[in-house]
């Protein structure tokens, strides 16, 4: 697997795996979102049971230069509880749909987590000292009889075992009729958007009793509904710009300065359908499951069922690059429709930082990653145009052993070490992946396990 020039070959090695070894997966343990914080020191996961688990990277051990710090559990808390909508007689799932970290401003860390209906701002803070030596209180908190106090002392802070506390600081509720699929923090770090199937709302992080509706695609007559919002994200640099994708494979870029209700897009990105690939399922597989801006903000990446597309914001009529994730599934779409796999929502991510790796012409390290079935995940190097398929499995769990590339055999004779399409396990899907913002460390979530891979350091 070759990166761009300059010796940037990445050889991925297994580092860690978190989660139960059981093959029997408890539904609550199903991982539903994975996100590094801005420094990469913290890695958060959300699960179907409404819990958030945060891992912290150990400080690098200077003596062990061959591996970066390991991630260990830092904090676990119950973010959302199941609720019941009495009006509709339906449960509101506690599953965490998305987690987004705020940039760190002080000693505490803040993240937004959301389920289908409610967004919460959590503060995660450390406590490693406690005050001792009060005059009026005993160490256990009981009050002393003031008459027994004969001398005074100044209370001092003494070290204690590290305690990490998570507390909900804001609860943003009752603003979404439909299921929230995205949250995105604005580059002003004061506002954020939340998107459900038909509407997008703008919030201020300090204000919970009010939000502004900025996109509304609900038709007057619900029978006319043919398209829903599937993902939304703020531009990384322009605080008035955001995009949202739809179930029909379109992306709309909106500018909040244009009007209060951004019902009219500034740009519409849509690729004309390839007539040779037309099928009953064309619309469904064109539905975009994730959209992510590049770090520069010049490009955006979209994921639909079979491919990853890179769009240049300056060109609306087609993507600049298209990468096939698992084209061999195109002939299986009917079965995948029957067993609902065709509705799986795969996410995608950019590599952490666009560091420059070439100068004439200027080249930036650029790899995109996304998941597939059979616990496979794929990476596409945008410079070399090479791609690789890797597998997240406990069988490869020898640290510092380079992962073996995988290959799926679409038809015909299966070569050695190849897997035929019919042998793929469609219950083992990798929907969520994340890339460390600074280093070549990736987090890959299988159904209930979190794998951490890093590149082999010399």
């Amino acid at each position: 697997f070759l990166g761009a020039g300059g010796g940037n070959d990445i050889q991925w090695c297994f580092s860690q795996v978190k989660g139960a070894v059981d093959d029997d997966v408890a539904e609550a343990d199903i991982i539903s979102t994975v996100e590094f914080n801005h420094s990469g020191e913290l890695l958060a996961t959300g699960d179907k049971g409404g819990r958030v688990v945060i891992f912290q990277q150990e400080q690098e051990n200077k003596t062990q230069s061959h591996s970066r710090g390991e991630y260990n559990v830092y904090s676990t808390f119950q973010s959302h509880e199941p609720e019941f909508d009495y009006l509709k007689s339906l449960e509101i799932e506690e599953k965490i749909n998305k987690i987004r970290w705020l940039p760190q401003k002080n000693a505490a860390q803040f993240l937004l987590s959301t389920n289908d209906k409610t967004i919460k701002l959590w503060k995660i803070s450390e406590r490693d000292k406690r005050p001792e030596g009060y005059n009026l209180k005993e160490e256990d908190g009981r009050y002393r009889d003031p008459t027994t106090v004969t001398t005074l002392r100044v209370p001092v802070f003494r070290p204690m075992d590290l305690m990490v506390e998570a507390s909900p600081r804001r609860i943003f509720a009752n603003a979404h009729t439909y299921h929230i699929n995205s949250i995105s923090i604005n580059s002003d770090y004061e506002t954020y958007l939340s998107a459900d199937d038909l509407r997008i709302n703008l919030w201020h992080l300090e204000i919970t009793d009010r939000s502004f509706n900025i996109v509304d695609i609900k038709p007057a007559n619900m029978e006319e509904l043919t398209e829903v919002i599937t993902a939304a994200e703020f531009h990384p640099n322009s605080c008035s710009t955001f995009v949202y994708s739809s179930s029909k494979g379109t992306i709309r870029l909106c500018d909040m300065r244009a009007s209060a209700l951004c019902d009219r897009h500034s740009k519409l990105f849509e690729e004309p359908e390839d007539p040779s690939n037309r099928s009953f399922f064309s619309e469904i597989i064109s539905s975009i499951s994730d959209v992510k801006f590049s770090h520069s903000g010049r490009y955006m990446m979209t994921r639909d069922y079979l491919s990853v597309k890179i769009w240049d914001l300056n060109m609306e009529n087609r993507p600049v690059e298209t990468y096939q994730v698992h084209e061999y599934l195109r002939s299986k779409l009917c079965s995948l429709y029957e067993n609902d796999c065709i509705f799986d929502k795969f996410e995608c991510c950019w590599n952490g930082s666009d560091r420059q790796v070439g100068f004439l012409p200027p080249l930036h390290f650029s790899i995109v990653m996304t998941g597939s079935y059979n616990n496979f995940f794929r990476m596409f190097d945008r410079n070399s145009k090479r791609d690789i398929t890797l597998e997240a499995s406990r069988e490869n769990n020898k640290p510092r052993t380079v992962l073996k590339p995988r290959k799926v055999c679409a038809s015909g004779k299966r070569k050695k070490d190849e897997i035929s399409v019919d042998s793929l396990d469609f219950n083992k899907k990798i929907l969520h992946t994340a890339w460390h913002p600074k280093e070549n460390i990736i987090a890959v979530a299988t159904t209930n396990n979190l794998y951490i891979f890093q590149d082999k350091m010399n």
Partner: protein
Amino acid sequence: MLGKGGKRKFDEHEDGLEGKVVSPTDGPSKVSYTLQRQTIFNISLMKLYNHRPLTEPSLQKTVLINNMLRRIQEELKQEGSLRPMFVAASQPADPLSDNFREAQPAFSHLASAPLLPAELVSTMPLESCLTPASLLEDDTFCTSPAVQHDGAAKPPPPALQAVKDSFSSALDEIEELCPAPTSAEAVAAEPAAGDSKAQPSESDKPEGLPEGRTAEPKLMEPLPGNFEITASTGFLTDLTLDDILFADIDTSMYDFDPCTSATGAASKMAPVSADELLKTLAPYSSQPVTPNQPFKMDLTELDHIMEVLVGS
């Protein structure tokens, strides 16, 4: 195998369904295209009504499936192919959909009863097809007694009467138990591809919709002997999206079997016995159906209906 799920019933057609998508213009492969389309249609309907009753279904999924159905229906309409698709009864206005939502539990019972006869109809030879499902549906879902639908298929009148009476009375009892919405919906697909050939010859009368169907002016080209296909605005015209979203329909008795349906009139299927029906219910018994009492009542009534239909 691909994923978990029920047994694959159309293995013999797999090459036709998978592997290639044929366009409708290919000569000999038109059959496999039609077959694929019909299968997808059936699967789509089943998906819409077979979701987990506990949480709200995904709107995106519902919309995509709905679009699929509309597209297929549009294609069918353009081809002029006349499949006896049983269309929902009257179209509720928005306020009704609100009522509908509240009466959700009631709807599930109403839905379960008539869908069964629809299935019976589709699998039985036409001669013994006593009552077309749409007729039964109309009886079911329009509490206004004025609803009369002569139906497209022409069943033997005496049997028809008998069925209607017993069925209607059964439904009345069900309705008494649960407050029915002023107009409730059910959609049952008639997957018998072959039946359409038999249908046209059976009817001489022009078809009109029953009075119960309030707002379907677009449908009303009288196609002799065939059920109207719903308007282009959507297969589920009468069924608003809210209905789909919030309807709690128990479809356990409606066994979509693309294999059997696709073989059409050529199949000389024996009438489904009540036992077989109950067996099909078994796999679904694990699903939590909140109002258990009326459901059990349905079974007894269905048994009764079965006897009448089979003529035993």
